[in-house]
């Protein structure tokens, strides 16, 4: 069983996309959701609070999602935090780069609620096993 009270951070520079992801998470009964508008703001929030999961865009001002992911993995406190990339970047080299940087999942926009649920469930199942 997934703990639905887990604290989730949604990082995207578009407020509409943050709203859509937040609404989809609400639909999946994840109610403890916070938002950040870019990678730099995201890292700051992550360092300040006890988050259990991150959903991040790639292409953002100040700090992009890949750089944020690399920073998370390099941080002793945050290193193991699961990160799901949700992005319009659809080039194969992007997907490979994200996987190599330690992303736990990769969803291309536009996506459906079912895809998001499937990826989140899979990530938590994998974490529970290993």
């Amino acid at each position, binding site marked *: 069983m997934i703990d639905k009270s887990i604290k989730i951070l949604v990082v995207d520079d*578009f*407020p*509409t996309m943050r*709203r*859509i992801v937040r*609404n989809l998470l609400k639909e999946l009964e994840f109610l403890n959701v916070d938002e950040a508008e870019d990678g730099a703001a995201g890292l700051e929030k992550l360092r300040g609070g006890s988050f259990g999961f991150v959903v991040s865009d*790639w*292409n953002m001002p100040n700090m*992009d999602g*890949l750089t944020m992911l690399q920073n998370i993995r390099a941080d002793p406190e945050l290193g193991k935090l699961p990160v799901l990339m949700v992005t*319009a*970047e*659809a*080039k*194969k*080299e*992007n*997907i*490979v*780069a994200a*996987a190599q940087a330690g992303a736990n999942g*990769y*969803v*291309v*926009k536009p*996506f459906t609620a079912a*895809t998001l649920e499937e990826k989140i469930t899979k990530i938590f199942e994998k974490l529970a096993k290993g």
Partner: protein
Amino acid sequence: MSKNAFDAEQGNTAEELLGRIGQLTRQLREGLRELGLDKEVAKAAQAIPDARDRLAYVAATTERAAHRALNAIDVAQPLQEGLASDAKGLSKRWDEWFADPIELDHARELVMDTRGFLQDVPQKTNAINSQLMEILMAQDFQDLTGQVIKKMMEVVNDVETQLLQVLIDNSPAEKRQEIVSNSLQNGPQIVPGNPDAVADQSQVDDLLESLGF
């Protein structure tokens, strides 16, 4: 290297650089005039602030439309959930009464509550429907932004054609082949069928699986 020698070299490099930029600029202007493109480029440059405004309009309009639809969903969802939970509650009470249909006072209360619920349903579904209409209407951005984008494409096309021509005419032959982008931030794939990109989520999953992730 002594400090003086270093300064001298710096000076030379900076001078050389300026010289080269000057030369390139002169070459570019001559090239443009020869090609009869100078007026076209001036026109394109003038179109750019206008293009920026158009893009800002598209961004603002689409954001407004998305919020409009999301706001309507925020209003409609609790109404919908209220209807469902009221119906579930009444249904449960009816089930209990059918299992043991004796307490008449209880039954009367249940009938009155059910009647009240039924009277409320059309009003609530009307309210939900008006939110659905709001979502429908919010989609009008597609038409508005579509027109603006179409005009934008003409401008961009003009600028691209002209700049590309200038670039080709002024670049050494061996460089002409390798004008390709090599970035990880390209945004959505606008034209389908790019062999370097995935077309859908299943291809993402396949790629990651093939890499052992």
